[in-house]
């Protein structure tokens, strides 16, 4: 004896999304995700997101906040321990550079040209490249 699947009446269905496309839970599927450049080089992890300003007291349902940038650097410390770094200490990747979202975030620019990779470049040029063999592939 097989049960027929119950067909929901239209008024039981949830309201359709107001925006077309895939819906992503930013906290679950963006925060703390690995970011790659087009050559599969790790760039950073999404430490935080910078959103457009909204009036928190009177949120406007027709103008939800938009994501401006992926953030990294000192914002990680303040996300864990509280507080907020000064604007000048924000390390950003423009949201326009985000090409794809899978289990990781894919960018359409190489890590080399991004400001956010400065610390990697600093350690490469000042430390690692100066040790003999640092620029050679492992054998």
């Amino acid at each position, binding site marked *: 004896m097989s049960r027929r699947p119950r067909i929901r009446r239209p008024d039981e269905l949830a309201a359709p999304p107001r925006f077309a496309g895939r819906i992503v839970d930013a906290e679950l599927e963006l925060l*703390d995700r690995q970011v790659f450049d087009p050559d599969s080089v790790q760039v950073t992890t999404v430490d935080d997101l910078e959103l457009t300003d909204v009036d928190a007291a009177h949120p406007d349902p027709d103008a939800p906040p938009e994501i401006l940038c992926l953030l990294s650097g000192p914002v990680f410390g303040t996300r*864990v321990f509280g507080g907020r770094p000064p604007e000048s200490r924000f390390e950003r990747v423009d949201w326009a550079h985000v090409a794809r979202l899978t289990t990781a975030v894919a960018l359409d620019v190489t890590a080399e040209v991004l400001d956010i990779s400065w610390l*990697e470049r600093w350690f490469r040029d000042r*430390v690692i*490249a100066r040790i003999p063999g640092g620029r050679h*592939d492992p054998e």
Partner: protein
Amino acid sequence: MKAISAVALGVLTAIGGFVDIGDLVTSAVVGSRFGLTLVWVLVIGTIGICLFAQMSGRVAAVSGRATFEIIRERLGARLALANLSASFLINLLTLTAEVGGIALSLQLATSISPVLWMPVAAFAVWLVVWRVKFSILENVTGLLGLALVVFAVAIFLLHPDWLQLGSQLLLQPPAQTSESPTTYWYFAIALFGAAMTPYEVFFFSSGAIEEHWKPKDLTQSRVNVFVGFPIGGLLSISIVVCAAIVLLPKGIAVTSLYQTALPVAQAAGTIGLIIAILGFVAATFGAALEVTLSSGYTLAQFFGWSWGKYRAPSQAARFHVVMILSLVAALGVLLTGVDPVQVTEFSVVFSAVALPLTYLPILIVANDPRYMGKRVNGRATNFVGLIFLALIVVASIAAIPLMIVTGAGS
């Protein structure tokens, strides 16, 4: 033919790479103090590491995400940072123990003081991590580690009283021991921690990405793990048995690496001793490489830095800086004059404390179809996985109180 030799190589390196300083020391200590009454822990621990190593390898091959990326994605920034701090510190403790183990093994071979060998050992580990390709590094130390088979051979050369050994296996304590139950359970947890050390999972999952595993490589990895690790576990058990046959009746409780090798020396003479020491050097050196890499893997994966041995060091700069600093820190601790064997004993117990931090996120993600598609865990795997998770949590909670009550097993 090529495929068969690849499988054989994988299995052999899994066997030879299974044993590290934690297993060498803890197995010998346990055998010399408790006979074979704790061998069941090694059996359970080996099943556990097979299960979770394979699971983390499957997650890495299918989703392309290594273990610490997953830990951060699943636990969130705060909890993951606490996890990273604990895992990284325990990893450093393990690294200290392994580098010390290399120095002690080289002392056995040369009679030169371990303090002189420690800088050499740390430098050699760095040089290999810096220059040598991942596959060579993994295979050479794994194959040399097979020298530890000499412990299994020694059992037969010692002509033991098999009946008496059998009754110890069935938890009949040997007449010579007078250990309290709390000490027994303390060492049970130490042995469990030694078998399931978290770095093995970090290394295994990151290694899957280093070697660009795809889902089609999973059969090979399954064979490596489910054949290689149990045989590696048998090597650990052989060390326990050797200590139980030779050291226990004489009342020698193992406190140094030298005593671990004594039964082999008695059974197989100088040749046996040379092979055993070769095995010690290979096992500790191989493990030191894995732990050094793991310290880089954990931090780089957590913060999203470029990492990997498949790149030149300059293409993964911070990853290499972390490994250099970790080796310097381990060397610094060793040069204060601490006893590497004691560091080892602490490192395996703290590993047991940290186990749930690593294994819970793996189990969660292995069930998440957004990462795994159709290759999520089957019901049987989840059933066994949950049983192990319960065991791991119990061991983790009990470890520190038992350590205090027993005075660290003294």
